């Protein structure tokens, strides 16, 4: 497995071994860790302490025990499901879209406009997005009325904007653009001569994809997918406006505990946030394993 090796340089002295086993190189990451500590971990530390307190302020583990309540487990399950599905579907079509504008032979103006549009759309979430879909695909939405006019009422055929599928369709609005923006540099990095070389050797487009392009792109695709997962996992306002909390997701339940008009238990909210941290950590481990495998091909 790849270890950190100092760059071989003519006449350079190899770095002295530190007790950490990979040299003193980690010091180069200190600015990043310092900044994160000062402006993220430290301010949020009271979240950790708060999760160990009850409403009266005394120490307790009850909040963590409460995490096994069926309604909270349900919220986590919903969040994970919605995030995973929108990450995969978003990743797929986002990738296709990016590939289409970069290597699909379309005018370059399409690429610029898609990139800039994606920049805006990636953050078009929350109340405006929910309302946009309500105005378009709601029961009296413009598209719905149009379709009803030609005899194809979507609501009669089982479609509803207000269930999980509807929510996922709405989430994709900011997942597609995110994928487009993140994967674009990787697609840029696919050199045209590789494709031509593969074609010269007689590979069909499918073979080129399966054997050359996809393996090269896989690490980046994986990385982008986990970003999409986290993005959907942390989203809150869109689902809240659209479904009024009837589809319980973790972020909304936390919000209800911490922010609402009705007195609740912020300690439970903080414990749930810690639960989210654990889930992200697990996702990253899975992703890292897959990453290493895909990069192994590149290194051979």
């Amino acid at each position, binding site marked *: 497995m790849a270890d950190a090796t100092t760059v071989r340089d003519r006449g350079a002295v190899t770095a002295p071994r530190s007790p950490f086993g990979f040299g003193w190189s980690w010091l180069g990451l200190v600015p990043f860790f310092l900044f994160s500590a000062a402006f993220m971990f430290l301010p949020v530390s009271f979240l950790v302490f708060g999760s160990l307190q009850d409403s009266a302020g005394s120490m307790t583990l009850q909040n963590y025990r409460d995490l096994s309540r069926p*309604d909270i487990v*349900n919220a986590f399950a*919903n969040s994970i499901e919605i995030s995973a599905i929108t990450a995969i579907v978003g990743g797929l079509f986002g990738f296709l879209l990016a590939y289409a504008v970069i290597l699909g032979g379309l005018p370059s103006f399409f690429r610029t406009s898609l990139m800039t549009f994606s920049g805006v759309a990636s953050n078009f979430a929350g109340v405006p997005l929910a*309302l946009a879909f*309500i*105005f378009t695909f*709601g*029961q*009296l*939405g413009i598209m719905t009325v149009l379709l009803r006019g030609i005899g194809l009422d979507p609501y009669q055929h089982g479609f*509803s904007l*207000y*269930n*999980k599928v509807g929510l996922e369709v709405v989430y994709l609005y900011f997942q597609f653009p995110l994928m487009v923006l993140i994967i674009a540099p990787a697609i840029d990095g696919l050199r045209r001569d590789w494709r031509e070389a593969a074609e010269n050797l007689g590979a069909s487009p499918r073979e080129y994809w399966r054997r050359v392009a996809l393996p090269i792109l896989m690490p980046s695709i994986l990385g982008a997918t986990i970003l999409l997962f986290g993005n959907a996992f942390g989203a809150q306002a869109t689902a*809240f*406006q*659209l*479904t*009024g*909390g*009837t*589809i*319980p997701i973790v972020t*909304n339940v936390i*919000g*209800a505990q*911490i*922010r*609402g*008009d*009705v*007195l*609740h238990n*912020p300690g439970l909210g903080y414990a749930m946030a810690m639960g989210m941290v654990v889930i992200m950590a697990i996702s990253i481990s899975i992703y890292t394993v897959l990453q290493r495998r895909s990069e192994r091909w590149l290194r051979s």
Partner: protein
Amino acid sequence: MRCNLKLENPPLTRNHRLFRTVAPTAVLAMLFAACSGGASSPAASQPPASQAPASQGASQAPGGSGSGGADLTKLIADAKAEGTLTTIALPHDWCNYGEAIDTFKSTYGLQVNELDPNAGSGDEVEAIKANKGSTGPQAPDVIDVGLSFGPSAKSEDLLMPYKVATWESIPTSAKDPDGAWYGDYYGVLSFEVNTAVIQNIPQDWADLLKPEYKGKVALAGDPRVSNQAIQAVYAAALANGGSLDNAQPGLDFFKKLNDSGNLVPVIATAATVASGETPITIRWTYNALSNRDTTAASGGPKIEVVVPKSGRFAGVYVQAISKYAPHPNAAKLWMEFLYSDEGQNIWLKGYCHPIRYEDLVKNNKVPQEQLSKLPDVTGAVFPSLDQLNTASKLITTKWNDTVGADIK
């Protein structure tokens, strides 16, 4: 002169006297009249636990026509020295706060720093807690929160007690005896109906269950989060065989509403009502009426506001001053302003029933045209704090089972 002597009395005696004069307004009026021009409050920067009303002439608009007491003048001067007031969670179209803030600014020349207008009560309390050591513009001076937040914030020692000049005319059930928090306005839950989509307008809670309203009824919030929504469920209980002590029928009602497909899970806003997505929305009369006006002003569909025949439930919000307020005098002046006749009338213009409503009407302080615009809310019931807390607990814990994830 009498008033000066009163103020120099030890607090205990003054408290007793205050309690005993909760009597007729006439007595108060005499007291006020006698004390005009005499009273001077001790330095307003100390948090006085049981101080006599700062200005005895405040049954008129403060600073308006000259007979406000010297302490009101001193309060104004102190507030001006501070220069700014920091508010939070005051949307301009909620109870006409926009006009209240503008009038306050222009009358006293103070700046008003408005923090998040969409904050919930939990946010407001959290903002006070987080800003304990801060004197910057992030620390709110005054808060406007749901009824149950008053006592809980007081128990966490976050509030600065203060009794406005018109303290006596605030109903006892709507204020903290120590002056830590005090009710400000109330409204009743009503149906906001988009008449372009709904021809047959529902008149009562039972009507909402009719099959013609399939997919048409919505709440303006999530009952686990918003006061307005949770009290809608509570109100439905009153109309369906429940009582202030039993909110379960409300949950049953909404279960029926959801199972029949009449309930739309969207959080209703003025936009969704106007677009017809949530043509029947359950919200406070003042919000519904204000929406009606703004929609009409934009040429949108005609909105009708119906106060249901049964199940009239009144919800009270409370005001309080933060103990860590960076501008305590500005905060007190703001309270004096809000509880003066002028301030209460501004709220009334926003279709809210100000907490001193009975008193104002009795003294003919309300312009007739305003009175006629108010909805008829006779028979509205007010829950006590305990009843509210019990019902809230029930509704928030049971809501998930009532309206599960299988929305039709």
